Every structure is written in C-alpha cells, then in structure tokens.
C-alpha cells in the first residue's frame, strides 16, 4: 500500500476487534499498529508517532479517558474513541478530555474511515480557509457572511459565533460544555438553555426543515455536530 496512507494505532483489548480493524483498515490503505492496553498504547504513541489513534474506553489496565488525558498532555494527535452503547456520560468525559470523535460499537468500518478522514483533514488544514462550504451552506469567515443556497442569512452575533465554532470543528462532535465555553466563556459552562435556544434559532435559519436537520445534528446526551455533507 501507499507510503502516504494514514498511520493508525488501534487500542483495544478485544483480539477480534483488533483483527477486524487491522484487516479492514489495511484494505483502506492504512498502516496499522496495535495495542491491547493503556500502557501499550502510550508506548506505541511515542514509538510509532501514528497519525490517528482509535481508542477503546474499556481497557484492562487503565481507564480509556486516563490514557487520553496522558496523550493530550504532550500531543494533539487526533483520537477517535470507541465505546459501547448507552455510555453517554463516558463519551462526554472523553470528548471533554480532548477526544476528537467517538463511535459506538457495533460500527461499520466505512463509518470509521469517514471519521478518520474528517479528523485527519482537520488536523492538516488547521489554518482555516477563508470560505467554508458544506452542502448549501456557505460561510465567508473573512466577511462574517453566511448564505444558504446562495441567499444571505442574517445571524445574530451569538449565532454567528456558535456557527463559527461548528465550522472550525466541522464533522466533529462538540459537547455542550465545549460549545458553551468557546462561545460564551467558562462562566457559562452549564447554561444549556442558551445553547438550546441558539441551536434552535440557527436551525430555523440554516436548515431546510428544522425538524429534520441535515447540518446541525443533535447527538443525544452528548452534544451537537456539524455534519459534513
């Protein structure tokens, strides 16, 4: 496979999952490293300098969120967290600790690849381009201009700031806390009312049908995501 394929570190204590990911990701052109526990993961991250880490939260030796926090203490390498269903508080904790995205088991490998591509693209083009284009939405960052299907939409300053955060992390899940902190500041971390109302308003202005949003997706119990279409 191509030398330029992404280098992926898979951290999971389940041999079956590691085998599946090793085979499938290799088929998508990735170079795959493996670790079965938290210490192995930390060692591999320093040893092989992967481009992205797929991290299972349930590890035998240490908590997945702990592993993530340690990695984040010296590296901004993209991390995608794997978890089983109904562990929303854990997902939120992982995202707040710096995870770039999460995926619930069972998952499709194509879905995982899509997430990998999103985080990789973001990490290479961190210098934001002046104009963001996603589906019918156009955001001209330089001119603070927003249009849907070519028609300009008038946003309040707060709505624009909120949208800007989504644009900067396009495709990535943002927790309530992250959004509140970035738009309103640390003091507003728990003011989910503000967020709920502004998201609702943004949807009315951007979505073709606010009741069936295509761009601003709610991740129940976790946060919101600007879906790339």
């Amino acid at each position, binding site marked *: 496979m191509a030398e330029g394929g992404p280098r992926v570190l898979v951290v999971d204590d389940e041999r079956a999952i590691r085998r599946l990911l090793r085979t499938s990701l290799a088929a998508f052109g990735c170079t795959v490293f493996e670790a079965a526990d938290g210490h192995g993961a930390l060692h591999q991250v320093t040893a092989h300098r992967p481009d992205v880490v797929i991290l299972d939260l349930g590890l035998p030796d240490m908590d997945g969120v702990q592993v993530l926090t340690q990695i984040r203490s010296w590296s901004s390498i993209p991390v995608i967290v794997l978890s089983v*269903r*109904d562990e*929303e508080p854990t997902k939120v904790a992982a995202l707040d600790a710096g995870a770039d995205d999460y995926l619930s088991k*069972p998952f*499709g490998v194509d879905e995982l690849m899509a997430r990998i591509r999103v985080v990789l693209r973001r990490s290479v083009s961190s210098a934001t381009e002046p104009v963001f284009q996603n589906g019918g939405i156009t955001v001209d960052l330089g001119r603070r201009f927003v249009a849907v299907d070519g028609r300009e939409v008038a946003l*309040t*300053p*707060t*709505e624009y700031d909120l949208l800007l955060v989504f644009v900067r992390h396009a495709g990535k899940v943002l927790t309530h806390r992250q959004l509140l902190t970035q738009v309103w500041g640390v003091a507003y971390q728990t003011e*989910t*009312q*503000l967020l*709920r*109302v*502004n*998201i*609702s*308003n943004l*949807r009315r202005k951007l979505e073709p*049908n*606010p*009741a*069936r*949003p295509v761009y601003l*997706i*709610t991740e*129940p*119990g976790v946060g919101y995501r600007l879906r790339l279409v």
Partner: protein
Amino acid sequence: MERSRPNPDELLDMVEAEDRQAKRGRLKIFLGYAAGVGKTYAMLEAARERQAEGADVLVAYVETHGRAETERLLEGLEILPRRTVEYRGTMLADLDLDGVLRRAPQLALVDELAHTNVLGSRHPKRYQDVQELLDAGIDVYTTLNIQHLESYNDVVAQITGVRVRETVPDLVIDRTTIVELVDLPPDELRQRLVEGKVYVPDQAAQAVERFFRVGNLTALREMAMRKAAQQVDVQMLAYMQSRAIPGPWPAGERLLVAVSPSPLSARLIRAAKRMADEMKAEWQALFVETPATANRPELRERALANLALAERLGARVHHVSSGSVEEALVDHARRQNVTKIVAGRPVRPRWRELVRGSLVDRIIRISGGIDVYVIGSGEPSEAAPSVPARPSPPLRRFLYSLPPVVLATLIGWPLSDRIEPTNLVMLYLAAVVVAAVYLGRGPAILSAFLSVLAFDFFMVPPRFTMAVSDTQYLATFAGLFIVGLVVSSLAARVREQAKAARSRELQTSELYELSRELAGAAGVEAITRVIQSHIRRVMSGETVVLLRDGQGLRPAAGSGGLDEDEHAVATWAFEHGQPAGRGTDTLPGASLLYLPLRSSREVVGVLGVEVAESAAPISAAERRVPEAIATLAALALERTDLATAANQLELLRATEALQSALLSSISHELRTPLASVAGVLSTLRAELGKGPASQLDEAARAELVETAWQEADELNRSVGNLLDMTRLESGAFRIVPETMDVEDLAGSALTALDARIGSREVTIDLPLDLPPVQADSVLMVHVLVNVLDNALAYSPHGSPLLLSARQERDEVHLSISDRGMGIPPSDLERVFDKFYRVTRTEASAGIDPKGGLGLGLAISRGIMQAHGGRIWAENRPGGGTTVKLILPSARHTDRVEA
C-alpha cells in the same frame, strides 16, 4: 376373646412406637427400694461400661452425697457444670437442661428422677426434663426409689407411715424403658445405715428408724422386685406381639374406674392403676358430671383434679354429663367394652343407703356381665374439706309460694260445704306441686306446710281452729309433705339437667359457630380475627395466635406479639407439640396457656389463651374447650396454607409457561438474524479464492452483504432492547433530565431512523410556541425511535406518518400517527406488554411487519413512567394507529433573545 395374631391397631401402635423409638432416646431406670441400696453407684458403673464401649457419656447431674467410693466412679467421666439459680437469697444448683441439650451426648446421667426442680425452672419436675432429653434423642440413665412411683405412693405410705411428696407418674416407665433393679438384702442395708453410709435427708432419727425397719424394707423390696419383673413382662409381651408369637395373650381386660369429687377417689384411682398393671389391662377413668356437681364448682374442681391424677397415672380419661351416675357409668362401660368396673365402698350414712341403695348396689343391679370390684375405703387419708351448704334460694321465692296456697283456699272455700275435705286436699296438692315445680324444694316445703295449716284452718271442721279432730288427716299432711319433697327434687333435677344440657349445647353450638365462621374466613388474618373474637366471647380472655415462620414463630397478622419470655414458652409448645405455660406442667409461670396448633400433618403454630390462675395443672377435661378451638384453628390455617400453596403452584406454572414462551421467542429473534449473517458469511467463504470461476456476480454479492448488514443491525437492536428491558426492570435506568425542544427530540429520532424512513413522507406538525419538555434526551429519543419504528413497520410502504404536538396546560402532548393496520381494541393496552406483538391479520396485506422481540413499546412505557409521563395507543379515525405521549413541560419557557 382369643387372638393368634396382633390386631391392626396394635400393629399400628407398634410401628408408631418403633418410629418414635428410632429418634427417641432410651430410658434406663436404676430402681431401688430405699435410699442407700447403691443406685447411683450401679448407674455410674453401667455408664463407665458404656463409655468404655465408646459411647459419648455426659454426667448431667449426679449426687454422690460425699461417698468416696461413688465419687471415685465419677473420675474419667465428663461432668456438666450445674446451673445455679438464686432462690430467696440462696444459691441452688440444679440440672442444666439446656446445657445437656446443647452438648447433646449419646448418654446422659441424671440422678434422682423424682426430684422437684428449683422454682423458676422450665419444668417443675425432673422427670419432665428427662422426657425432653429423651425427645431430643439422648439416652438417659436415672435412679428412682419405688416409693416415688405414683401408683405405689399410697401403699408405701400405708406400710411405712411415711408419705413421700415427690412422685413420678407411672407413665414415665413405658414399655421401652429398661428397669434395672438395684438390690441389697435389708440386713446389709441396715448395716450400712448403722455405719453411716446411707445418706438420709434431714429426717428425725426416729422417723428414719421407723422407715428402715426390716419389715418395711422387705415389703418395699418385694414391691420393687415386682415392678421390675412386671416391666420385663411388658417388654416380653411387646416382643411377642411384634413377632406374632401365639401365646397367652391378655384376655383384653379393660378397667373403668369411676371418679368422684370424694377425697377417697384418689385412693380408688391408684388402686385401679395397680389392678390394671397386674392384669396388664388398659384402664379408663370416668367422671360423671351430675347436676349436683355441675352446680357446685368446688366439687367439680376436686373431681377434675382426681381425673387429672388418673390421666397422669396412664388412664384414658372421659368426662360425661348425666343425671344418673350408675347409668352413665354402665353405659360408658358397655360402649368401651369394659370388662371390670372399679368402685369405692360407700361412705355415706347407712340410712341413706337403706333408702336409696348405695351407688355400688345400683351399679351391680344394672351392670349385667361386667364385673364390679369394690375397693375398701380404709380411713380417709385426709379430711374431706367441709363443703359449704347448698345456697338457699332467695327469700322472694318463699313469698311466691304463698299465692298458690291462697288461691287453693279461695277456690276451695265456697266448695267446702259440698265437697268432702279429703277431696279438697287435691287443690292444696296442686298448689304444692306448682310451688315444687317452679320454686324449688324450700318453697315447696313451705307451701306444703302452709297448705296443711290452711286446710286445717279453713276446710277441716271445726273451722277456723287449728285443732285436728280426726287423726286421718295426719295422713293427708304427710302426703302433702312427701309430694312436695318428691316433686320439688324431681323438678330440681330436671331443671339442673336441662341447665347442664344447655351449657353443653351452648359449647357445642359455639364450636359449630366457630367452625362455620372459620370456614368462611379467607386468609390468616381473618382466621386470627375469628379465633380472637370467639375466645373473647366464650372464655372472655386475651388471645395470641403465633404462626410458624421458617424454624421459629411469629405473631399472625392481626394478632399481638409477646415479650421474650412468653415467646420462649410458646416456642417450647410449638417445638414439642405439647401444651405449655399456665395450667400445665411445663413453665407454669407463664401468663398464658399455649396450645400447639396441630394440623393433620404438623404443628402450624401456637394458640395462647388466658386461663384462670390455679396452682394445680388443669386437666385435659378443662382444656377441652381451648383445645377444641385450637384444633379447629389449626385445620382452618392448614386449609389456608394449602390454598396458598395451590395458588403459588398455579402462579409458578403460569410463570414457567410464560418463561418458556419468552425463551423460545428470544431464541428465535436472536437466532434468525444470526442465521442470516452466518449464512452470508459461509457463502462468501465458500466463494473465496475462486476468482473468475465464482458463481456469484457482483450484484448477488452486494445483495448478500446488504442482507447480512441489515440482519446484524436487527440483532444489535434486539440485544439493545433486551438490555434496556433488563435495566428498566432492575431499576438501573437513571433519568438525567434536561430541558429539550420537542423539535430537537423529533429531529434526533428521525435522524436515527433516516435509513428506515427512506422516502416515506413524515409530516411534522409542531406549533412555534411549543414549550420545551423536561426529559432525559437519550431515553426520550429512544422512546420516539421505538414508537416511530413501530409506526413505520405496521403501516404500508409509502403511507404517510404524522408527528404532531400540542401544549395542554403544563403538559406537552405528542402524537405519532400512521395509516396502517391499526390495533384491535382489545389489544390497545396489551401492545405495551413485554414480548407482545399484534398478530398479523387480513388487514395487514401489503405490510411487512418487522420481527423483533415485542419489547419496544414496553420499554417506551417504562421510560415514560419514569419521567412521570404517559403513553397509550388509540385507533386513528380513518384508519391507522395513533400513539400518544404526555410529557411534563419544562417550567421555564423563556426564550433567550440573542
């Protein structure tokens, strides 16, 4: 009556005896005829032998009286410390019964069977302790002197002039008891006495000397030997019966002894016991309650005490009411096949015998083929307590005896000229009879007296004088007197019998009433209530009903509890299946009498009733009423138990049926998708490496893979639902409420179902001013997904869905409607049951209902309820189903302006 084989009853007795024997300990009594013959010594020797054979021997209580040779024998035996009890300032050491039971040796040595326990012990007598040890399966060696045996008590007292107070009922020696005679020639015993080797409790030397006369000792020795020999006989008989050895069977003698309130009755009872023993006959005791005793509680009490003595001596006791002692006695004897009646020589004044004949005479006259034994009375051993005179009738009655006489005079006066005075007497006779019948004996005599006066004064010439001119009228006076007496006593007897019959009848009807009420009582609480109110009515006392609870007892529903001490007494009665507490031999210090509630199979509980405090144990006859109540109660409780058990069994069966249905449903729903996935994978694996030779084209391959993917998704959902259901039922769902826009909820649910909805038209009708709701976002989206998923599955492809919401006061009402097959009205509720799926009907043509476990709506309802909301289904006008959800709206509906 000759028998060559044991009859079935005897066999049954034998089986039961052996059955009990298997668990019960064996009793060995070292029987002596006086103190100092070496009983304790012999017992210790025998125990040492047993220990040498490997038995686990415990010295529970042995009194050596400081004799060195005896004490030496104690060496090497385990000795249980005695229990010390403080009694009136002195410390008394006694047998530690619970200690022995805890230690549970194979063999326990308990000296002096006739010992009376320290006040406050569990049982008043040591032999009762021994019974408990035997019941616990512990063998017991004990010692006993012959004069302490109840039936020998009188005889010994007569021979020696010393009455022993501590007696042991004969019942203690049953046919499994081994009696070992410890013998010593009287000369040697006297020698030992002289040497000071015999321990004699503080008795005057003179009394000791009198007791230990050679003549006395010889007589006592003979009695002890006879008792020991008799016991061997009994055991031999039992052995022969059990082996059906034809032999000199007892002729089936049955003795009946009449019990009366007389102080001599006790002597008669002991004599009957000895006779029965010698004849190896079964014996019974009968108390005939006559109107005379029924009306006089003190007589009745004494008779019942005598009856209780007979019971302790091993008699079967009976208690009947009748006006005639002899008739009741003979009648009972006939019915019970009694061969011999034992009666006492009368002690009444001779003149009464001459008038009425003695009771014995009357019995003999009607006894027919039954032998009648008459036992001499001897000197009364104790003075009969003086009996208070019959209570005199109220003065009023004497006044009432006047009017009949006046009336007779008024009627007779005008006629006296025409009718002979002799015939006028008839009027007075009528007056006397009236007084006798209605007013009793005293007034009748008064009436007779007044009649004679009035007759003489008004009717007999010369009138208005009391002079009797003609001696013939003396006969008239006598006649009036006698008629008055006879009629009044007959009438009194009839009245009293009727009263006795009424009280019996009352008891019977009370019991009938109780059984009727119990039959109607459903449940333990109702039964308890019935018993309590019944006892309150009949015995006017407090009642406690305790029921078995595992190994112990607990107060029944509706019954009060007991303090710790009383509870222990009740527990004893429960564990031993015998009455305990006040009025019994066991723990008589308790405040209630505890009767075991014995059903046909086991003891189900204990009934505690309040009985009058009395020093002596109350007899079986007096326990009759409470025992009858206890029996009825036990049966009623057993019936309830059985009904409950039957219900539980039914429930269990239903549950098992449901569970097996669930298991098969679950296994079907999990295996089907798994089978598809495995099938697809096996096909693809078989095609591996075939390259161009593969039979599968790209499209077929894609279809296979798509199938497997969908089925895996289905499997994931089923497992998720099962997990959710489990969490819901175990209460592991934690609701984390947050304020949510309904629009956001709907959007999230629809997004999750994007793939399933596909091109289906979903209309969303939400008012702009709809307030947000307070809900756990994850769970609420889950509910909406489940409901929407059902709507999609049970409506035709391409038919539209409608999701709408309205505000109603503080609630938000959500509706999800389809144009599908609808739900049969009878199933509108049941669709929310676990594992329930609407059966496919004709109306479902064109619909391809999804599989699944039928858990989605059940989970949704659980989540809604946890939110304080509601969910239900309705049939939609125009066809289809509407599922409605109600959620509380968030309190603050503030819309932040940006």
